[in-house]
């Protein structure tokens, strides 16, 4: 007895079953060749849980040493209020912590992408620090504008240290910038600290200044990178994207070109940023940019300036406050390029392979969302 009509699910599953049994019969060399695409397809269609790469086992977690890929997790843009005001954002950050703690194998470290607090309040920052303490893996943090403009970084420094720093891990040089420096718009207007914070907190608030890295930090960056060979694997973190996407929402860094110029001599650079609360992919010359998801809420895509390489995520459903949000993991390869897996809550995870930006979009394009958008 054969079914009268094959459902879409049946066809789907038959295709997958054929694909995977075909995989098994490949020899090792062709298996490795196909595996990158398979990994991407498998992950994007939900067969691969983030960081548990099965059935395609290609990127085993390296035991250490310079020549093996390694992974770190990311959590970003939690925008916490104090608990008595808003439980939803706190619960979302806890969900992200739970996700990362459940990763098997554990990532080498967890990177926090900025905007831990919503209005820069000391209690919000402390609450965030406390929640992040539950992470099993070591934590590295970056500052966002919501963390900074209430007290100009006083509480942040007390909790987390200097916002601008660098470190080395398994042969890769990591740089963390404060890319949300704004020219003083508050003194002339006589704004209070809270007014200043609320102004910056409004994405579409036109009173604030555009973000920048600033001359001081650019000098620091030059010094930090001095003497490093051009082949050094280099990863830069910034809160705002280090390019000019959309000025009206400060998806923007005013001195982006100057910063990019400092990075230009390297063979390739990965830049990871938060602030945009959406999946964003871009490549400018030797720099490969990827955006982090937020745990708190998704932003819509800007009406103009969207990078060509970006595959948009599905339009989030407002009934599900977690839709369009999540956390993720990044695998850095010995050549310095990285894959990123976005663990979108209630949707299939999306993997963006390094070959996608490396080929300028010709290979391994991430699949468009599977689920119907609302």
């Amino acid at each position: 007895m054969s079914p009268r009509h094959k459902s879409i699910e049946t066809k789907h599953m038959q295709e997958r079953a054929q694909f995977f049994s075909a995989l098994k019969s490949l020899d090792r060399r062709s298996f490795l060749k196909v595996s990158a695409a398979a990994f991407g397809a498998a992950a994007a269609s939900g067969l691969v849980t983030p960081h548990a790469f099965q059935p395609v086992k290609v990127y085993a977690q390296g035991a250490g040493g310079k020549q093996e890929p390694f992974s770190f997790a990311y959590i970003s843009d939690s925008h916490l209020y104090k608990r008595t005001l808003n439980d939803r954002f706190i619960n979302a950050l806890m969900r992200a912590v739970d996700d990362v703690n459940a990763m098997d194998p554990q990532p080498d470290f967890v990177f926090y992408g900025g905007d831990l607090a919503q209005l820069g309040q000391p209690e919000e920052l402390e609450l965030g620090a406390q929640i992040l303490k539950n992470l099993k893996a070591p934590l590295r943090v970056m500052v966002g504008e919501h963390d900074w403009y209430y007290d100009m970084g006083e509480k942040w420094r007390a909790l987390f240290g200097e916002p601008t720093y660098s470190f080395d891990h398994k042969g890769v040089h990591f740089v963390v910038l404060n890319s949300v420096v704004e020219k003083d718009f508050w003194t002339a207007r006589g704004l209070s600290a809270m007014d200043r914070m609320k102004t910056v907190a409004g994405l579409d608030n036109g009173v604030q200044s555009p973000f920048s890295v600033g001359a001081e930090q650019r000098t620091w960056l030059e010094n930090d990178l001095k003497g490093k060979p051009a082949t050094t694997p280099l990863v830069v973190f910034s809160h705002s994207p280090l390019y000019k996407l959309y000025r009206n929402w400060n998806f923007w860094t005013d001195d982006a070109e100057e910063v990019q110029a400092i990075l230009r001599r390297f063979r390739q650079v990965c830049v990871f940023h938060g602030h945009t609360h959406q999946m964003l992919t871009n490549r400018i010359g030797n720099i490969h940019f990827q955006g982090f998801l937020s745990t708190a809420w998704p932003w819509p895509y800007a009406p103009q300036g969207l990078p060509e390489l970006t595959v948009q995520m599905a339009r989030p459903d407002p009934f599900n406050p977690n839709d369009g949000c999540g956390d993720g993991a990044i695998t850095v390869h010995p050549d310095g390029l990285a894959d990123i897996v976005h663990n979108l809550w209630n949707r299939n995870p999306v993997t963006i392979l390094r070959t996608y930006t490396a080929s300028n979009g010709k290979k391994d394009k991430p699949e468009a969302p599977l689920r119907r958008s609302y």
Partner: protein
Amino acid sequence: MDEQLKQITALIPATAGKSAPAGVSSEYWKALVPADNIANDARIELGRKLYFETRLSKDGTVACATCHDVSRGFTDRRNTSEGISDQIGQRNAPTTLNAAFFTSQFWDGRAGNLEDQAILPIVNPIEMGQPDGNAVVASIASDAEYQKAFQAAYGRAVNYADIGRAIAAFERTLVFLDAPFDRFARGDANAISADARAGWALFNGKARCTGCHQLSSNNPIGTDSRFHNVGVSARHQNFEELAKQGLIALKKDSSKEALDKLALQTNLSELGRFVVTQNRADIGAFKTSQLRNVGITAPYMHDGSMATLWDVMDHYNKGGEPNPYLDGGIEPLALNETEVAQLVAFMFTLTDVRLDAQNKSELERQRAIAAQRRPFRDDNAANRKVLPFELRATAQR
């Protein structure tokens, strides 16, 4: 079966099933009925016979009506259903009432319509136990009355696919949408109690029900026909482990029958829609059930783990059961006891007036149980004093 047959003849009007029910646009109804199975008296009559036909099962003891019993809200009032040889499955039997309005059948949507659904339990080893379609056909093909009936209905000899069609045609007559709520919706404010009216307001507001349980004039049953993980199965096992197991098992055999078996027999059943689509987003997701006649179709959820509607409300009120795949639309609701009671009162007004006697006795029965125990109630969680993911996040240090 005879008793059920008597009851059903009394309940269904002669015009049922052949055209769109009152209030539903004929265009929309057409989208719900396959073109090769337009209803007529012959098909409906045949389907009714088959629905109550125990000969279709391997040992002649089980018919559709065994688990979808007319006198029990067209379900069986069991947590999970029992098939031939006293075997017990993993899923709660959904009601046949108004089932025509779903855009897929089964808790995991593995059947596209009523026709596809009807024939699967017959060949499931623990439900009706037949080895395959041929055996099913053989069980009634020699009966001259059936031969005549099939010819009259479909102009063909007895065959397996037509068994499904006929049953589906009969099931489409089971439209029970004349409830006190409908009279209230048409303008009679006193058709339902003040509590129920308050419950209706909560349903559309604070309790966030309409996100999944959608009630509109053309889709009056209270479902979006989609799949959501509300955390019911997360109570029982480790999801991530199950998901990995599921992938391996399905690679071996992904036909409809294998899925059916898996769904009912193994613990992979708890993965729900994932077993059908293999989408990670569907892990532990089950179809939004309908709310029509919900008062008389206890127990609730895909595994029948909730005995009363109070239990259902407690589950949602506390924000479901946290797990990595929990639908983000499930949040703690901070409903107080009065509001919970009002929502329950509202839900009991959704039962068709023809089934009022069952509704009343069920209300009393459930109320008595709820008065004694409320196993899912958690006021701390409901009022957001402890957050859904808090214990998980802080326990893993």
